[in-house]
């Protein structure tokens, strides 16, 4: 449900950037979303179609790059993807880790005309 507020913020940001670039329309929006944010692609698309009506971003294609939750083991310094119900380092069975990816929520770029 947070997708509504997130999509609105994303649209505001895209329109601001498009205007800055002197664009007439936005053709594509490239988004980077970390798995940990719990943001669901289909929801963003649904809200976007609705919110973007009548704006310069109406009809723009959304491209999602999803980033898996990745941890760095503080024991052996190796990175690994965090499994759903197993948060143990697969290399050294360490139990102390730092999240290094998976919290992303940003607009990478937009394609404008």
């Amino acid at each position: 449900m947070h997708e509504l507020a997130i999509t609105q913020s994303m649209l505001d940001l895209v329109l601001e950037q498009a205007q800055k670039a002197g664009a007439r329309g936005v053709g594509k929006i490239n988004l980077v979303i970390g798995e940990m944010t719990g943001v669901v692609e289909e929801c963003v698309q649904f809200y976007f179609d609705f919110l973007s009506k009548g704006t310069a971003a109406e009809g723009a294609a959304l491209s999602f790059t999803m980033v898996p939750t990745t941890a760095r083991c503080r024991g052996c310094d190796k990175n690994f993807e965090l499994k759903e119900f197993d948060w143990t380092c697969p290399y050294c069975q360490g139990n102390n880790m730092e999240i290094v990816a998976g919290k992303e929520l940003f607009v990478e770029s937009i394609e404008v005309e």
Partner: protein
Amino acid sequence: MEVKVVKDILGANERIAERNRQLLDSNNVFAVNLMSSPGAGKTSLILQTLKRLKGKIRIGVIEGDVSSSLDAELVAKEGVPAVQINTGGGCHLDANMTSSALGNMPLKDIKLLLIENVGNLICPAEFALGEHRKVLISSIPEGDDKPFKYPLMFHQADAVLINKIDLLPYLKFDAQAFSRTIKKMNEKVKIIQISCTTGQGIEEWVSWLLKQIEKG
């Protein structure tokens, strides 16, 4: 033409949260964002905290709910300033709503501000309000698998309070495994077992809270 953006989608919220934080700091107010699923005990914890700290420190409360002002009325009965935010269907508080509520809060008269977020373990994790600490209440009946299901919330929390600990004999909940799981990805988190019904652990919570206020 491709335009590089690389900007945080919630940057606007972050900027308002930063302004809220400055306003709080300039009034010497310490703010705590209390989060949990519905029914985990946020309001009960606030009431217990008010009881313990009465006469020691002046507290204000912001109550976030989808609708109704029940919680603000409950808290106001304790004689502290309380402001209700109704999100009108929204699943979380954001910095902008908090900013409006701060305008109605006598900041000069309080030292501690408790902000009760909307009951939800997903959405509030994304939206900074301008708080100094994030506190998560997770209650025994919710089950010990919650850190796996809502990792962001548990990852960000400065403290996790395991509430309704008095129900432990009746429910299948491995409190040790639960704490271990949280510590794996949130090394510095403070975990306290509490019961707002029996009062267990409340003293420890309050002393942790007072220490945080000192630290700022």
